[in-house]
């Protein structure tokens, strides 16, 4: 059983070796740098990050705040572009894409699950789930069917007409998960998915993630909670903008 260890010193850790697992490489990050210009100083949020994620993996990215894990998540989610390096997702070279091309990739390849759910408050659960399909240009009838099915798969088939404020936190996160999955993305990218939930609901959501993983979805969870990371099959630890550890734990 994996025991998560907070590495206080980090001096005795071996240098990170890029994982070279077999199978189809869904995500490949090669020598990724993200640098912010702060006045005259350059701040490296990510330094030379390289890793690969295969289809069907369940990966947790963990690290203390300020470690660069949010920057990495934004890059994985195609919300941002790296300063240097190559990022491939499902055969697309994302690192050189324009804003609109990135939007297309987000729509097709990424399903986001956020800590604060990020549902549109004024829209029903159904409409929220339909959103990615609307931007994919799908017709209303087909869209409705798919969104209904996605909500049913997270056991919210009877809540389609409810607005977020009429749903509990766990239900809202399940709507968000349904929205993330409705367009069959390559990866489900979750950012602190249980951060705003009580422990009982957190367990439910994590169980749902495991179920989705078992059904063949590739899941990446960015978190600082050990309990959440322990559910994954592989954990990448980020510190000071670099990968400190990359371990398979089950």
């Amino acid at each position, binding site marked *: 059983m994996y025991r998560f260890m907070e590495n206080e010193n980090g001096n005795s850790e071996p240098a990170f070796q890029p994982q070279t697992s077999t199978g189809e490489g869904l995500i490949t990050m090669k020598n990724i740098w993200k640098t912010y210009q702060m006045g005259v100083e350059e701040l490296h949020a990510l330094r030379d990050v390289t890793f690969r994620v295969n289809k069907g993996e369940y990966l947790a990215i963990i690290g203390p705040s300020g470690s660069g894990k949010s920057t990495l998540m934004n890059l994985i989610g195609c*919300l941002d572009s790296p300063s240097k390096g190559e990022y491939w997702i499902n055969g697309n070279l994302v690192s050189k894409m324009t*804003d*609109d091309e990135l*939007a297309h990739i987000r729509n097709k390849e990424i399903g986001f699950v956020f800590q604060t759910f990020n549902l549109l408050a004024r829209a029903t659960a159904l409409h929220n789930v339909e*959103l990615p399909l609307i*931007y994919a240009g799908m017709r209303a009838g087909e869209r409705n069917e798919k969104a209904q099915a996605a909500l049913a798969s997270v056991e919210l088939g009877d809540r389609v007409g409810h607005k977020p404020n009429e749903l509990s936190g766990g239900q809202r996160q399940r709507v968000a998960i349904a*929205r993330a999955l409705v367009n069959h993305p390559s990866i489900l990218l979750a950012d602190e998915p249980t951060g705003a939930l009580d422990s009982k609901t957190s367990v439910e959501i994590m169980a749902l993630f495991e179920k989705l993983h078992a059904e063949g979805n590739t899941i990446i969870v960015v978190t600082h909670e050990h309990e959440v990371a322990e559910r994954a099959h592989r954990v990448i630890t980020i510190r000071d903008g670099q990968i400190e550890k990359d371990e398979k734990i089950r």
Partner: protein
Amino acid sequence: MNLAETLKLALASIMAHKLRSFLTLLGMIIGMTAFMVVLSLLQGFSAYVDEKIAGIGSSSFTVQRFNFEDFKDTDSIAAAQRRNKELTFDELDFIKERAQLVSYIGAKAGNTSRDVRYGTETLAEVSITGAEPVIGIIDNIDVEYGRYFTESENNNSMRVAFVGSDISTKLFPQGDALGNEIMISGIPYRIIGIQVAKGTVFGQPRDNFVQLPIKTFGANFGGLKWQRAPYFVVMAKDGVKMADAVDEVRTLMRIKRKLPTGEKDNFGIVTPDAISGLIGSFTRAFSIVILFVPGIALMVGAIVIMNIMLVAVTERTKEIGIRKSLGARQADILRQFLFESGLLSAIGGLMGLILAFVLGIIITKFVFPTKIPWWAAVIAISVSAAVGILAGLFPAWKAAKLDPIEALRAD
């Protein structure tokens, strides 16, 4: 994201803040209402003018001493007074005998103002004119009681009068005007006909007149000269273009007056087109000035919309972030906000139009006829939508350009 989808979204956003949307639109509504009311007044005015003024015997034109152009400045008035002789009955006969394209031609004279008396009652400042009997046909005069003049009454300068309905109702409240005698400057005239009431045009009563046979008028009011000089009213034959009849009459007048080719007319011909053209040029100049004010209101309305759209973009930064994370492209966001401001503004325009329409009905009922032409309504809606889109351009561009990460971080 298709258009219907975007439109639905825009409508939902507007309806989510009904009061705010309405308040935002107040400027637009007031501007559009003012614009349309003013426009409808102008349209009503010109329709009214066409109908009431130019429309009087619209198949006839007049030959008179002066031309419109002669009044442009004092020099040309003086020159025209020297050059242009008074029209004569000789000239009338000359045209009458020779014109092929003219069905009727008759002389009118006057507009002298006199008091008209019956018993102890006096009507002050009544318009007195003279006319040949044929004018009854040319001017298509509506006789309510009695008849118009006969040739023999004219030829014998008989003291008979055809009067407006004001004369009969005010001097003869019993309704016994026909056959009675009215006194003008101490001379009695027997009323032989009363015209159907015509109402007023711009506050000018059109029923307050006495018309006499032109020879009677000449004999009793100091001769048919100076301001009492005759002018001719001409009616073109059926199926003849008025312009052709005008040309013919002008040519005959020039022949009669022995004007060499190239020399200017020393008389004037006034067609209904010329009158409505003249009034039209007045209304156009007037329109530009008067439409400028509501135009400013519209502009202020547009600025308010732009302001509220900027607020909306700031308020909905998070929403924009969410949409972007789900795959909305810049164009999707841009279109969403443009549609919203365009639709918002168009709704304002529509409300303004409806309000203007209602006001128009009220104004027409109590004050003055108004008219909103259908094209103006179409333009009003399109213009307000265009104004909204224009006003939304900058806010929408700001929204489209938002960084998704920053936007998602917003509250």
